[in-house]
C-alpha cells in the first residue's frame, strides 16, 4: 500500500505530480502574481511554509479527530478553517517577532489562505491514505513544487516582456495560460520516474 519512502514522495510531489502543473490547483495567485521574480520568490517561500505545516496539522486533525469519529465528510470545512486560522496566527507571530520579515513575507499570508493548492494538498493526503512521514514529505513537496512552478513562470514572463511581441488578444491571462500549459507538458516528461497513483 505504501511502497514509497519519504524522499520518493517528496520528489514526486515536486516534479511528477506537481500540484500546479499536473493537478492545476492554485492557479489564480499563480497567474496574478507571477510577473516578477522577487514577488514570486516571496510568495513561493510563504506557500512552502504554509503548505508543509498545514498538511501535517490537517493530517493530525484527520487522524485523531475526524476519522475516529467517522466524520471524514467534514474534512472540507475543517481543513479550510484550520488553514485560515493557521495563516492568521503565523501572520501575528511574524509581525511581533520581526518587522522586516513581516514586510517581505507577511503580506502574502492572507493571499495564501485561499490558495486552493494548499487545501488540495491536505485533501490528497487523505485520499491517498498517507502516514505521518508521507504527509510531511507530500506537504513540503507540494509547496516546493508550487514555488518552483511560480518561479519558473516569473522568469519566463520577465523574459517574454523584454523580447517577445505578444499578440493583442493573448496579452495577460491568455499568454500566461499558454505558458502554463507548455510548462505542464514539459513536466510530463518526468512521468516515468516516480508516480503517486
Amino acid at each position: 500500500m505504501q511502497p514509497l519512502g519519504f524522499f520518493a514522495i517528496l520528489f514526486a510531489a515536486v516534479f511528477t505530480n506537481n500540484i500546479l502543473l499536473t493537478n492545476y490547483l492554485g492557479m489564480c495567485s499563480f497567474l496574478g502574481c507571477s510577473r516578477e521574480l522577487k514577488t514570486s520568490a516571496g510568495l513561493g517561500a510563504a506557500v512552502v511554509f504554509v503548505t508543509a505545516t498545514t498538511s501535517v496539522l490537517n493530517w493530525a486533525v484527520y487522524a485523531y479527530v475526524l476519522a475516529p469519529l467517522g466524520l471524514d465528510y467534514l474534512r472540507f470545512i475543517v481543513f479550510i478553517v484550520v488553514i485560515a486560522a493557521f495563516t492568521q496566527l503565523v501572520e501575528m507571530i511574524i509581525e511581533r517577532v520581526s518587522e522586516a520579515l513581516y514586510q517581505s513575507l507577511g503580506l502574502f499570508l492572507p493571499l495564501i489562505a485561499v490558495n486552493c493548492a494548499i487545501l488540495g494538498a491536505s485533501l490528497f493526503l487523505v485520499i491517498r491514505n498517507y502516514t505521518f512521514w508521507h504527509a510531511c514529505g507530500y506537504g513540503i513537496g507540494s509547496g516546493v513544487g508550487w514555488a518552483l512552478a511560480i518561479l519558473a513562470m516569473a522568469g519566463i514572463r520577465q523574459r517574454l516582456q523584454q523580447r517577445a511581441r505578444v499578440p493583442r488578444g493573448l496579452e495577460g491571462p491568455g499568454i500566461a495560460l499558454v505558458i502554463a500549459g507548455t510548462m505542464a507538458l514539459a513536466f510530463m516528461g518526468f512521468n516515468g520516474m516516480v508516480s503517486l497513483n
Partner: protein
Amino acid sequence: MKQSAKDDAIQEQMRPGVITRDGLLGRDPRKLRDILDADDAAVRRLGLTHAGIAARLRELRDAGARGLGQAVTVEGRFDVRVDSARGGLPCPFLHEGLYAKEFVEVHNLRTGERLVYSELSMHLIEAHGFYEGEGSPFRLEPAALARVLELVPQDA
C-alpha cells in the same frame, strides 16, 4: 486578475486624495497590473520604450525650464512652459524619494495638441511604466505622447 498584496497597497496610494486630489487612476476599473501590462504592450506596439519616452519628456522640460515659469519655444515646433509649486509628492510605488511639484505644459505648434506632465509623471513612466489610469485628467496615452512629441520608433 488577482494581484499581489503589494500591488494592492500601491493601487491604494493612487486613489483620490492620497497623493493628488483626483488620484492617478481616473475612472479605470482595472487592477493596476492589468493597466501596466496594457500600456506596456501599447508602447511596444508603437516601437517605443518607457525610457525613451521619459527621456524625451525630460529633454523638453529641461529646454523649457530656461523660461523660469514663462513659455519658451523649443526646437522651433514646441511651446514649453515649466512652473512649480512648493513641496514634494511621494511615488505611489512605495519607495523612497519625494518628487518636486514641477509641471510642464507642452504645446505642439504644428498640430495644436497640448500635454501636461510633472516630475512625478516622468518618474512613473521611466521607472514603473505607469501612464495613469483611463479617465485620469493627467493620463498620458502612449499614442498621444507619440503624436504630440513626434516620437519615432526605435529599431527593435
